[in-house]
């Protein structure tokens, strides 16, 4: 990724900072993965203990809303890549469209989650009703909380649009927030497949 470097640091420093933030970001993603891995372990245990799934005669969640969620978050990730390409080619317009669309589709994702939760209510999948709805709610709440974190991170990218200032610090920020954002999308995909589809 090329960038206009404002401070007079050697290119070794720049590469160094980039590598440092890559390593740190990898560790952050490993940590977050372990949280979700523990949740999936719990899911595996409950699933193994109950030969019939969903247990207790509960209904499966209709796939429409979860699929819409998957679509929203996927498009959001795509727009983030569009935003990144805009940053690389110094196109203010592309950056603006990219970032705002990323944000927009993230909000649509969250909106679809709320709709999902109220649909689950209407088919009798209350939180207190058992292990099956407990799992669905816990996974989606925790994931949504992380999306909230991600949205806050996206706000830290706004300076790029206004000042037009490019620095290697902003380079790294965009790459790393992107990694986190795509990571959240990947986690959602796994949740979608494991909890809703299969």
């Amino acid at each position, binding site marked *: 990724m090329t960038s206009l470097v404002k401070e007079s640091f050697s290119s070794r420093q720049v590469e160094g*900072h980039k590598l*440092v933030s890559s390593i740190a970001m990898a*560790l952050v993603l*490993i940590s977050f993965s372990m*949280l979700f891995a523990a949740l999936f*372990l*719990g899911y595996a245990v409950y699933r193994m203990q109950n030969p019939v799934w969903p247990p207790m005669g509960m209904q499966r969640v209709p796939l429409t809303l979860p699929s819409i969620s998957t679509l929203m978050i996927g498009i959001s990730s795509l727009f983030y890549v569009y935003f990144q390409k805009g940053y690389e080619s110094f196109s203010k317009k592309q950056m603006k469209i990219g970032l705002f669309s990323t944000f927009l589709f993230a909000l649509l994702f969250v909106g679809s989650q709320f709709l999902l939760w109220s649909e689950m209510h209407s088919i009798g999948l209350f939180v*207190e009703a058992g292990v099956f709805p*407990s799992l669905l709610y816990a996974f989606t709440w925790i994931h949504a909380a992380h999306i909230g974190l991600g949205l806050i991170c996206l706000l830290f990218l706004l300076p790029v649009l206004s000042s037009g200032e490019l620095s290697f610090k902003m380079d790294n920020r965009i790459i790393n927030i992107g990694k986190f954002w795509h990571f959240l999308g990947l986690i959602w995909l796994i949740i979608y497949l494991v909890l809703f589809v299969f």
Partner: protein
Amino acid sequence: MAFFEQHIHDEPKTFLSKYIISFDHKVIAKQFLWYGIFFLAVGGIMALMIRWTLAFPGEAFPIIGTLLFPETGGVVPPDTYAMLFTMHGTIMIFYAITPILIGAFGNYCIPVMIGARDMVFPTLNMLSFWLATLSAAILLFSMFTPLGGAAGGWTSYPTLSTLIGSPGVGQTLWTLAIFVLGISSTMGAINYITTIITLRAPGMGYFDMPLTVWGLWLTAILNAIFLPVLGAGCLLLTFDRVFGTQFFLAGAAATSGSGDPVLFQHVFWIFGHPEVYILILPAWGIVSDLLSFFARKPAFGAKATALAMTSITVLSTLVYGHHMFTTQMSPLLTQTFMTLTMTISIPSAIFFANWLGTIYKGSINFATPMLFSLGVVFVFGLGGLTGLHLGTVTTDLYLHDTYFVVGHFHYTMAASVLLGGFAGVYFWMPKLFGTMLNEFWGKVHFWITMLGLNGVFMGMMVVGYAGMHRRIYDPFVYDFLQRLIPINTFITWSAIFMGLGQIPFVINFVHSVFWGKKAEANPWQVGTLEWTQPSPTPHYNFKEIPIVRCGPHEYGNPNLPAGRDFQYQTEEIV
């Protein structure tokens, strides 16, 4: 080779930026040190209250008893007792040991020992401390809620820790406090790992790092990987308590369907077992280094020690089931966990061989840090060996949940880590605060602590083998435990003795911090990078980033000129 060079910041000027909101790893280290010592005192007083109740049931706790428990005339009531042992465990593990060994020593030692000017993420570092403070505030607050703080043991097993067993908000706040602390520690862990990978000075390969840094690095790796697992467990428990999910509810607790309380135990111990290694690895590292420094001899098998620490790090992730033998897991799981637990004795034996090999044919200076390091070898020997009794399934069926377990983990966690931590404080005092701790009072501190400690924890193992179960308010309800009253009294007096022995340390410490004589740059004649700089370490650490030319244990080289018996890491080996 460092990935980039950190520039030298101006020295902070205001009181706020110097001591409160500081980005300097040395200041943050000191903040964690004060924090940890404060909670060590709180946890220690709780321990004394527990011991008092066990040795003198029905008698008011001295001095502060009537103040705290007016309704019972100063006697600790049973539900408060439960809260006391829960908080004692939680505070000692998360709010005393973690801040002192990992927060304070990790923060101080890592940058100066690898030749860096600060941690790679100073802001994250500062946030880590303030999040830990927030967590402490939540925990302390939880103890004053109407139904009291968490009282289900620090392990907080459901369904006792769900609403049916713990109806108050105290347990929920406890879980929240642990979750916040987990975030703080994970931030710290990421900072430490990245700093060690990316900011080592030119010439410092991984095996040129002092073993202290190895210990801290491996601890950080375990923290980063396994704290989120605890986080997941805490989240699910909180959901059960607050939103009515059914993860861990069964029996009368479950409103519908059935969750699995034992699942919490699995999730907890997947974190919990690595956690105990997280707590001891820094101490192992410090001791391995200090034994070499004070025996004026290279660390015997230093590379092997580093590799042994690494292999224990890996093995520790595979053995958690030995905490759950009595839950009747499948025979295959049970036997697998037992066999894997046995393998941990191999790297541990390597440590002992290397520690003893280090002092063999050395020239030992028995300064206070060395006394404490030798103390660690002694107590960890006892503690580690009794782990064998507990890792073996059949003996564990008798010993589980008795004081034998309490004695074992206090020997390994409390005794070893505490002695290692004290060794570190006495050793790095000149670098941290620019003064030396008084040697005479240091030795007094050591001997009282050692005697008291052995009395307490050996006594516990003895009564545990004799059948005394743990977490029991009045063991003498049981006829078969009546004969243990004298030994319990002995343990309590030992604990009081040990507690009193900490007073010289606190006075010594506070006096030295504020009114101590200025220390020279290298009073212990040690060659790691921090000793190449003046005492206390200047705010920029290193004016010029040092170039490392040899390892950290260059002592006793016969080619050295007369009058010198060590080399700085910046010198070529003669």
